[in-house]
Each structure stands twice: as structure tokens, then as C-alpha cells.
């Protein structure tokens, strides 16, 4: 890129903000306390633009852009919370809740779930879509952790943290479309996989899909905030 100007100025929701060249809209918005909802994004991991909750409107374009990967340009005017976006966000959340078996009352992550919190934040009061009620499995073969596919939203944070941070690449995705599930190794049981038992995937999982066996029946908050610091420390080495 031959663009010599390092600093850009742009407008997000009417607020003038500055940004570095190459920064994403999401980064700049969060620096300025402007809330853009996200589920698949996690600071410290690469972005995939999969959950589509961070879609924003750019003036002059009819296309909606994912704020987590769209980079800033000079004079850009971004709207993060229009009626059109709210409508899509609620529909996306409805799709997520209806896709698998999300029953908060019996979930280990009840009260600490990012999906649950997002539903509340976006004012989701009921689901109009038919529940799909798929028959999914639970893999409790691992000595410390369990994966419950009923609660997975396929954000792929576990896949990314395992490959990018732990360097083990035990997690991946199998199948296509609505039948996709996360798997360990080549669809081996988690317990007999090459898992290093680091537990990073459990900490970054936004729902109760991955959980610590010792926390069943008790509060199960997760702590994904170690990532940005870990990344910083590694970069410093």
C-alpha cells in the first residue's frame, strides 16, 4: 500500500474519531466506547467475520460490512445501530437460539453466557422461528472438560485459540451447513485426542458448550481476558 497517511479521521455514530491506518472499525469504536455487538470476535484471536452481529452501515454503500474485519478509511461515516441493523441482529440471535438446544435454566453458563447477555442487550423477548431441536451429542470423555454440542454456536473461538495460541490445532469443524459441528482431531473422542489440556478453549467459549467438569452445579464464569496480554507478552519476546 502506497498510502502515506498514517492517521485517519472518521465519524462513527455522529462522533468524530481518529484511527490508525489498517485499524478495524470495531477497534476504533471500542477505543471510543461505542458498543458494537460481537460473538465470534475475541481480542487476541484472528477474526473470521462469522457471527454477523457486528455488521455496520457505511454511508454511500448499500452493503453492510462486518466491523471486526472492515478497515477504516479517511472520511468514512459509520452507523452502528440503525433500525435496519437492529432488525438483522435480532433475527440473527433468534436463529442462534432456535438452531440448537439453548435452555438457559439447565446450563452451566447461566448468568455468564455471552449469547444470553447478547439476547438481553438486543432486547430479544421471544423467538418467532420454529425451534429445530436437533439431536446432538455430549462428549464427556475428557478427564477435565466436556463439550456439549447442544450449546455450541459455531463461533470457532475454540478452533482459533487452539491453533493460534496453543499451537495444537486439536479443534476443527466437521460437516457442512446446519450439520457442522466442532470436533477434536479427526472426530476422535476429546479424551483420547491430542488435547494438551490447557483449557484455553473452555475459557474462550462464549456459551456453555465447553465447560469445566468441576464447575457443574456451580457458577461457571469464564476468563477470556488473558488473551490480549498473552499475545502482547509473546510479541515482546
Amino acid at each position, binding site marked *: 500500500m502506497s498510502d502515506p497517511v498514517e492517521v485517519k479521521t472518521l465519524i462513527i455514530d455522529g462522533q468524530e474519531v481518529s484511527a490508525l491506518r489498517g485499524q478495524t472499525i470495531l477497534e476504533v469504536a471500542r477505543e471510543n466506547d461505542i458498543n458494537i455487538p460481537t460473538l465470534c470476535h475475541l481480542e487476541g484471536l484472528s477474526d473470521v467475520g*462469522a457471527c*454477523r452481529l457486528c455488521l455496520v452501515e457505511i454511508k454511500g454503500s448499500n452493503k453492510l460490512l462486518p466491523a471486526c474485519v472492515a478497515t477504516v478509511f479517511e472520511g468514512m461515516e459509520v452507523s452502528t445501530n440503525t433500525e435496519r441493523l437492529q432488525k438483522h441482529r435480532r*433475527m*440473527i440471535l433468534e436463529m442462534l437460539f432456535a*438452531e440448537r438446544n439453548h435452555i438457559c435454566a439447565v446450563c452451566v453458563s447461566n448468568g455468564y453466557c455471552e449469547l444470553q447477555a447478547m439476547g438481553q442487550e438486543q432486547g430479544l423477548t421471544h423467538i418467532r422461528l420454529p425451534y429445530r431441536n436437533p439431536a446432538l451429542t455430549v462428549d464427556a470423555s475428557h478427564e477435565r472438560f466436556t463439550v456439549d454440542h447442544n450449546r455450541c454456536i459455531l463461533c470457532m473461538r475454540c478452533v482459533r485459540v487452539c491453533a493460534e495460541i496453543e499451537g495444537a490445532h486439536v479443534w476443527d469443524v466437521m460437516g457442512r451447513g446446519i450439520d457442522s459441528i466442532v470436533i477434536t482431531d479427526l472426530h476422535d473422542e476429546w479424551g483420547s485426542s491430542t488435547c494438551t489440556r490447557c483449557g484455553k478453549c473452555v475459557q474462550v467459549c462464549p456459551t456453555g458448550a465447553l465447560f469445566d467438569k468441576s464447575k457443574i452445579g456451580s457458577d461457571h464464569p469464564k476468563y477470556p481476558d488473558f488473551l490480549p496480554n498473552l499475545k502482547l507478552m509473546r510479541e515482546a519476546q
Partner: protein
Amino acid sequence: MTIEELEQIAESVKAENAKFDYEVNVCMDLACASQGSEKLREALVKAVEASGKTVLVRRTGCMGPCSSGPLVRVDPEETLYSHVNAGHAEAIVSSLGGEPIQALQCDLNEHFDKQVRVVLENAGHIDPEKIDDYISCDGYKALMMALMEMTPNGVIHRITESGLRGRGGGGYPTGLKWSTVAKASGDIKYVVCNGDEGDPGAFMDRSVMEGDPHRVIEGMALAAYAVGASKGFIYVRAEYPVAVARLTTALREARRRGLLGSNIGGTTFSFDVEIRLGAGAFVCGEETALIASIEGRRGTPKPRPPYPAVSGLWGKPTLLNNVETYANIAPIVRNGGKWFANMGSERSKGTKVFALTGKIANTGLIEVPLGIKLWEIIDVIGGGVPGGHTLKAIQTGGPSGGCIPADMMGLGVSYDALMAAGSIMGSGGMIVMDDTSCMVNVARFFIEFCMTESCGKCIPCRAGTAQMHTLLTRICDGTGTMEDLELLEDLCSTVKEASLCGLGQTAPNPVLSTLKYFRNEYIEHIVHKRCPAGVCNMEVPVEVLA
């Protein structure tokens, strides 16, 4: 290899062919081959040997009207025989020099008269496994001309001037794409050919790869010269084994002739092509998913920008075009951009190959100048709807396209006109439907296709298409409500606007276009529990299209 050497080869092929009094061309494309054209060819060879006549029996690519296959064309008279089998071989050979066989002859003059063949000019005339046959039809002349006489910018200018737009579906101006890749910085660049044709009812690219593989390779070599690449990939779906075999042969022959490899034509330009096989995922026709698949990763799309033109294969600038787009390049470079721009309509230049299928008399492959009216394709080229039924709609663009109702047959076929009508040009599938088709069921079929082919990465496409399928199934079963219809429209809007890649963004099109033109059918299903076409079974919920 020089232009003179090419001309020498062409001359010798022509001299060789002139030794024969007659040429009997047998179509060996999939439709004809599945009806025994290989046995037919063997029988013809035997009959020729027995008769003592000097006859060249040649296997060729697709001749077009597949529903009349197996097809045989006798040259120089250009007599076309349809529905030929091995039992007819002796009669055909003995009729050479005399009167043609009336019983086998087919009258498809109207079918061919409206067509203009650019991409398919050699299909049905050359042996796809012989490079010399291609060279004798001006093959590789454009490449040699470009290498000897034109600058890379000159080639791009010619493509820009031609007004060619991407034939894979998007209709992005090809010249603009080429100049973007040419200007992108980087010492390594790639040229990729998308042969992952996956639309139901589409087989244009397969026929081009099987019938005239060198045309695609020459187009890619020209593209590589223009943008400064030295490595190319052809991504072909593994469901096309014949295309893969023909391309492999073609690449080997082109290398042997020095038309691929290092220092082509004694210049500093080097270029070679590798074939990569798709593993059966429709989504790998999407460019970023295709790139991921070539790199050996799971075929899922990535958000754009960055576009492949800037950061594609292994992060390098990558030019990605469809098979048919590359097939147009050599004639444009040979004949000039203006020649191409003279064909077609104002903003859609040239010709387009369509795979005409469904409830139509002449199913098969056609190539028409853009701007042609839909009724000309259906009534004249296609021979109308058979069996006394009436035309109801035409589905274009595959699962990303829409249905155009029968009263819009005056529409000229172009990227913009189809878009305005709620459909798309797509890669060129054209499915004709008559009054026995239920439009709700058609919409459900295409949504089911998108649901099973969604990669599952983004939620609107993954769950949205599944939800749409559930609602459409309810409507087809007679258990749908007006609230379901409203919800369906909301879903369409979110899936269209919020999905990550083209697959999801266009998946609602079949539903939206049938809702636009055939809304009364939906209402009939919901309110009166009646399927006007008599397709959906209302009493007991059953899988109709299973």
C-alpha cells in the same frame, strides 16, 4: 514455437484431413456418451474399414442439442443425424456420397440459425484430445501474437475494449479485474480458473473443458502474460472426471509443443498450469472459498476486502475467472475488442453459453448473442414447451437466481435486465418450467440445495436457509400460516443482507422472485390448502422432491 510453426502445423493438419473424402464427427460429450456414442464410434470405424472408403471418424465435444443425441455430423455436407446407435453405422457409411438417410436426419436449422458461436466455435468440430486439431483452428495464434507483438497493457486494453464481463455469474468487468491484478504490487502472481460448476442444471463449463480444453489454457496463458503471472491453477470439480482427463492431456500436449513452460515462444514469458480437484462443495465456486480449497484448507469463504486481486492464493495477487470467461479471451485477442463489442447489448457484450434444460423440446447447450429475447430462446432455439403444456416460468442463474414468469418473455437477456427482474445471469443455467411445476415447491428445492451446500461458517446462511426450508415445507404441506409467510420474508431479508458470501447473499433469490411473481400460489397453499399445479400433497405431509 513461433507463429510460422503454428501455421505449419495447421497446414499439415489440413493436408492430412484433405486426404479423406468424408468426415464423420461423433459427439462424445457426456449426454451422447451415456447413450452409447463410444460403441457407435467403434462401429463406424469398423464399417469404414469394411467399405474401403476414405473416411475420417472423429470424436468431438458437445454439438449442442443433447436431447437429440447421440449426434453424428457428416462433413463436408454438414448433415446432422440424431438418435444414432451402433446399428446405424453401416447405413451411414454406405450412404456417404449418396443421399443422406432421411430417417435419421434431423431438422434443427432454426435451432442453430439464431445462435452465434464464439466459445463453442470448435466444439463439435475438433478432437479435444489433439492439440494439432486446435492449432488448425487458429489455436494458440492469439497467444503467439500477444507474445510477439503486444505489450501486457495492450492485451488488457483489448479485453477492456471488448466489454467482456465475468461469465461466472457476478458479471464483473473482466478488463477491470485484469488491470487491478496487473497493478497490484508483488513479484509472484497467480492466475486461477474456476471450473467448479455446481449449479443444478448447468453444464456449460464442463462442455467447454471437455470439448475444447486448449481454449481455456490459451485464455489463461494470455491472462498470465497480461497480469504478470507465471503460475496458473485450474480448479475442477472431481465430479467431472472426463474434463479432468481432457485437461490433463491438453496440458501435457501444450507443454510438449512448448506452448506452456519456460520461455514460451522464445520470449521471457514462462507459464504453467496445475489442475486442482474440488471435493464436491458447491461453496468452493465462491472465490475466497476456492482459494482456501486450493491452498489445502477447508473450503470456507473469507470476508472481502481484501479481494483476491490484492491478496489471493497464499496472500499473493490472484486473477480468478470462470472457464467461459477464459474461453472468450483468445478470440478477442485474435479479432480485436471491437469485434466482440459489436455483439450483444449495450452493457452486456458478446455471446453467452446457456444450458437449456427442463420442459423444453431441444435441451442442450446453446450460445446466443446477449440481448436476445427470452422467447427467441424458448420458442425458436428451444423448440417450445412439449406435450401441449404451457410455459410458466424460466429459472436462470441456478440456486442464486430467480424465476422469470411467462409474461416477461419479451425480456432481453443481459446482466442488468435479469437483475432488474429479480434473477441473475449466473453461470448460465436456464431451466424451463411449465404448468406442471409448483413454484413454492421449486423455491423449496433451491433452498434445500443452498441449505445442504452452505458451508456453515456464518449464521444467517447456516441457520437461515434451514429455517426457510422448514417454513417452505410447512407451506407445501398445507400447514403453513400467513405468519409463516411474513417470517419467511423477514428471513429472506436478513439472509440476503447479512450473509458472509455470495452463496448466502443470493440464496433467498428463488424465494423472493417466486413471491414477487407467483405470490398467489403461496396464498393458495396457505389459505385454501390447495396446490394449483397439483404437485404438493396437502393431506399427508410428505417429502415431495425427495
